[in-house]
């Protein structure tokens, strides 16, 4: 318990729902006896006006700064209690709800004494957790400097204009120096967009003339580091590197189009693709006669075909306007929807633009001067005469600029070639904080209009952040990961597995660099903290210490045949609470411990629980089919549970004592079956027998979990956001696992040796005897420990060296 903590417990009877099942008076008396508890009271309905008034009154009168509520679900009710206690400066992390209703009263069939005992255990867990809380106040972001618009896409200009209209500076990284430069290259990314050029030119002219828009040279980007409100971009320069700073980043990335299939058809300049056509239109070089646009993306997806058809339609409008001798016709697949209205069709007919669908199942055939196709309605073969045949351009891979930015920013490509970016932050109560915004057709193939709109929207998001910062509302979230720079070794594992962008990019290639956290994008999932080999990371307001204190308090009140069940807020907890709502019941031997994400459970918590009295641990998280809300938390937990199973086996215990289960929000029956099945397993195995020898082994297993070497090897197997496959599928899975077991065996033995030496110096045969191992197995590990300075060779006695613990180790 922290010295300044003053904790009060408030028990809600919820009418008869809790009060009728539990002996609340007895509970109050039990809990009130602990010195850590300054206040304990019973209320009939805490969430209603009179209850809330009593709660705030008591909290104020007694100067409480930790409030533990024995009531119902924190998912539903915490917000209300936090709002009520806010005037007293008691924030959400200082409030803990133990769900007496849905976790105990409504789901168990036992009598009041058993339920009261369980309630006391869970509530004391809450006392332990709140006692270890070190409140941290969210930080405010400094939002200064221009918006950096990288990537050179057209959407960046739209963003810059929107920003300039709202008085915000921007810096565009582009080689273009005037609107003409931009328009000259635009057909490579948005072919067939000439009809927009007039408007676009005016827009671009405005951007280039604006005093709020600066242009930066388009040099290779070396690094992008920083966080919301304060980013630094390093550019390669002819004379060394230069650095630009800004408040937010907009990445305007466009997909470039590649040449169409015109070259396979021959025709010597009479068969061209859309890109060639755009160049001819720009140069005003069009031969008179019939121009047939054949939308021929046979292998492409629907979206690409639609865009190609739209490009053909717009280009034909330009053709009839600018080249009187040209008669355009668009031949498009019948399953593609043309972006034209009825009025457009009438106008097209008047101007002499032909619009014909063809049956996409029967491939049209090109002959000299004619294109043969099948009409989808009358099923007849038709032929259409052409003097110039225009085929579709093909959306290609992201340009070189995109590839370059991918290497410095958390952008990942999807299977279909489009992109996503790392940061995600969406929770109840929290709108996403995005300051790294991706726009343009690289994200998803789109037309020019949509790209410009995306740019505009991106600008609005940045402006929203700026307004938030001005009001002093742009604060870091309540739960936030933090890195202890003294402990951090700069291995970068956290940055690799971080999916929310909460672990900041640091300069690459500079050796071990301590990581920084980006407080505004962290989603508090916490898998990075649980993965850190050096235990340098901590979740503020939800630390592993708090969880450990909670588990210890609960375990000390549990019986041998009971199980600890970690449930994630999104899967297990929701399902368990729904079971209560739907009137299901399960055994009271299951003690639920809620965590935000299973991924936030440090593996040492698991070994600590076994060491301190758990006979079985169940973890219920979201099913892999309904993706984890915190990235890959469940995946990561899978590997941690697997490690715990290996250690259990080394301790001579059943691997089945820990199990991971998946349950979705609306599957309460699945949750009940899961607990029943796991209790059956535990019944078969019986309680964990805690002999002195067994305790020593479990202590060694716990020490093994703390070893940076073990945690590093474990870190290798954790899935990275860029990995498309579950890492269990690696082709050398068995080899990897065996290497890992070797490391584990060695470290486990080392931990046992250190345990044996804690009683005083021993020589090798004595150590081997104490551990029940062969000397040949022990001595290499002894040498290893000696080399790492974890042991010292004290002196020689009877022809044997005498080993003792090094003072530091």
């Amino acid at each position: 318990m922290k010295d300044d903590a003053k904790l009060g417990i408030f028990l809600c009877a919820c009418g008869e729902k809790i009060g009728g099942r539990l002996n609340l008076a007895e509970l109050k008396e039990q809990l009130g006896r602990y010195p850590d508890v300054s206040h304990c009271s019973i209320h009939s309905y805490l969430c209603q006006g009179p209850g809330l008034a009593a709660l705030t009154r008591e909290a104020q009168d007694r100067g409480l700064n930790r409030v533990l509520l024995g009531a119902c679900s924190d998912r539903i009710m915490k917000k209300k209690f936090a709002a009520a206690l806010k005037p007293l400066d008691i924030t959400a992390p200082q409030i803990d709800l133990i769900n007496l209703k849905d976790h105990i009263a409504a789901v168990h069939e036992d009598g009041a004494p058993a339920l009261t005992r369980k309630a006391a255990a869970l509530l004391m867990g809450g006392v332990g957790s709140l006692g270890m809380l070190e409140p941290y106040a969210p930080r405010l972001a400094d939002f200064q400097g221009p918006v950096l618009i990288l990537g050179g896409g057209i959407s960046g200009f739209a963003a810059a204009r929107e920003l300039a209209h709202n008085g915000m500076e921007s810096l565009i990284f582009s080689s273009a120096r005037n609107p003409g430069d931009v328009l000259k290259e635009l057909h490579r990314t948005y072919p067939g967009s000439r009809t927009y050029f007039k408007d676009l030119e005016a827009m671009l002219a405005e951007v280039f003339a604006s005093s709020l828009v600066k242009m930066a040279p388009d040099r290779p980007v070396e690094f992008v580091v920083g966080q919301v409100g304060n980013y630094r971009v390093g550019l390669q320069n002819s004379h060394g590197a230069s650095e630009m700073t800004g408040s937010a980043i907009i990445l305007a990335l466009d997909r470039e189009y590649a040449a169409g299939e015109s070259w396979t058809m021959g025709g010597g300049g009479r068969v061209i693709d859309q890109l060639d056509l755009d160049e001819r239109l720009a140069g005003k070089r069009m031969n008179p006669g019939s121009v047939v646009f054949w939308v021929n993306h046979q292998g492409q997806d629907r979206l690409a075909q639609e865009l190609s058809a739209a490009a053909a339609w717009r280009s034909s409008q330009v053709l009839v306007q600018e080249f009187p001798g040209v008669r355009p016709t668009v031949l498009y697949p019948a399953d593609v929807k043309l972006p034209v209205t009825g009025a457009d069709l009438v106008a097209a007919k008047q101007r002499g633009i032909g619009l014909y669908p063809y049956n996409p199942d029967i491939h049209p055939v090109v002959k000299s001067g004619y294109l043969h196709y099948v009409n989808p309605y009358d099923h007849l073969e038709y032929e259409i005469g052409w003097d110039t045949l225009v085929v579709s351009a093909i959306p290609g891979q992201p340009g070189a600029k995109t590839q370059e930015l991918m290497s410095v920013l958390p952008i990942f490509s999807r299977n279909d070639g489009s992109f996503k970016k790392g940061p995600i932050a969406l929770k109840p109560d929290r709108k996403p904080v995005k300051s790294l915004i991706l726009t343009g057709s690289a994200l998803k193939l789109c037309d020019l209009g949509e790209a410009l709109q995306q740019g505009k929207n991106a600008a609005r998001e940045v402006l929203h952040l700026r307004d938030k910062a001005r009001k002093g509302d742009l604060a870091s979230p309540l739960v936030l990961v933090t890195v202890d720079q003294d402990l951090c070794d700069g291995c970068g594992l956290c940055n690799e597995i971080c999916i929310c962008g909460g672990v900041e990019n640091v300069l690459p290639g500079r050796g071990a660099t301590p990581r920084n956290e980006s407080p505004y994008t962290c989603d508090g999932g916490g898998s990075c903290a649980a993965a850190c080999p050096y235990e340098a990371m901590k979740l503020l307001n939800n630390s592993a210490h708090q969880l450990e204190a909670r588990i210890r308090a609960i375990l000390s009140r549990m019986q041998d045949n009971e199980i600890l069940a970690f449930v994630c807020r999104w899967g297990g907890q929701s399902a368990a609470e729904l079971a209560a709502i739907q009137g299901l019941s399960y055994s009271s031997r299951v003690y639920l411990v809620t965590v935000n994400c299973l991924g936030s459970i440090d593996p040492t918590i698991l070994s600590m629980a076994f060491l301190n009295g758990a006979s079985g641990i169940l973890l219920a998280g979201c099913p892999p089919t309904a993706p984890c809300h915190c990235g890959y938390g469940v995946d990561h937990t899978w590997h941690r549970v697997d490690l715990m199973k290996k250690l259990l086996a080394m301790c001579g215990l059943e691997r089945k004592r820990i199990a991971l289960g998946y349950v979705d929000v609306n599957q309460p029956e699945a949750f009940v079956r899961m607990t029943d099945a796991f209790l059956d397993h535990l019944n078969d195995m019986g309680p964990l027998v805690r002999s002195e020898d067994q305790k020593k082994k479990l202590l060694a297993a716990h020490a093994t979990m703390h070893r940076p070497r073990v945690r590093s090897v474990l870190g290798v197997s954790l899935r990275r956001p860029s990995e498309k496959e579950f890492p269990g599928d690696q082709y050398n899975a068995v080899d990897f696992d065996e290497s890992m077991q070797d490391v584990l065996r060695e470290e486990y033995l080392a931990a046992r040796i250190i345990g044996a030496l804690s009683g005083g110096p021993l020589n090798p045969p004595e150590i081997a005897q104490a551990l029940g191992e062969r000397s040949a197995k022990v001595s290499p590990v002894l040498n290893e420990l000696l080399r790492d300075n974890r042991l010292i060779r004290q002196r020689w006695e009877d022809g044997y060296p005498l080993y003792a613990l090094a003072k530091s180790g």
Partner: protein
Amino acid sequence: MINFTINDLEVSGEDGWTILEVAREHAIDIPTLCHHGAVEPSGACRLCMVEVSDGRRSREVASCVYPIREGIKVATDTDRIKNLRRWVLQKLVDEHPGSERLLALAKTYGVTPSRFKSSDYENFCILCGLCVRACDEVAGVGSLSFGNRGVNKEVTTSYHEPSPECIGCGICLYVCPTEAMARFYAQVRVGGIFASGAGESAALRSRP
């Protein structure tokens, strides 16, 4: 402090409290369906009707939204109120004869489906709006809303399509007083926050 009586019991409360809140504090039972402590009351289900008399006249009000006033006399178990309550329940169970939870509640007040019951055994939603309010107020998401009007009114998502805003928190499931949301939920959620990223979902599904 506001003093008044509920069933002749002298009670008091503060400005802004409702009759229901004070009654519950004194363990006076008033049934509710659309009321939940986590969200603002809306008075939709009319099950919490009580009789309020201010000395001159008496009338029936929804206790979950009726603020307490000095000197009023509240009665929760007069014949008039019991009758009203039975009628509300009668209409609910007749319209939703398939809902076990509604039937169980009605049975405790001696109400069973009449011969005029609906033939639609798949209609569970009583339009109490708890899910809509909870999604908005608690989750802060707002992916659920009421669609259409009158007899066609329904709880739905934008464009009647799975909601990309839905974060899959399941709070709507928790607050729903009938089986309605458990059945509708699959049509609300796309797949959590990764809904828009097909790549991620596919990656997770490739898991052994």
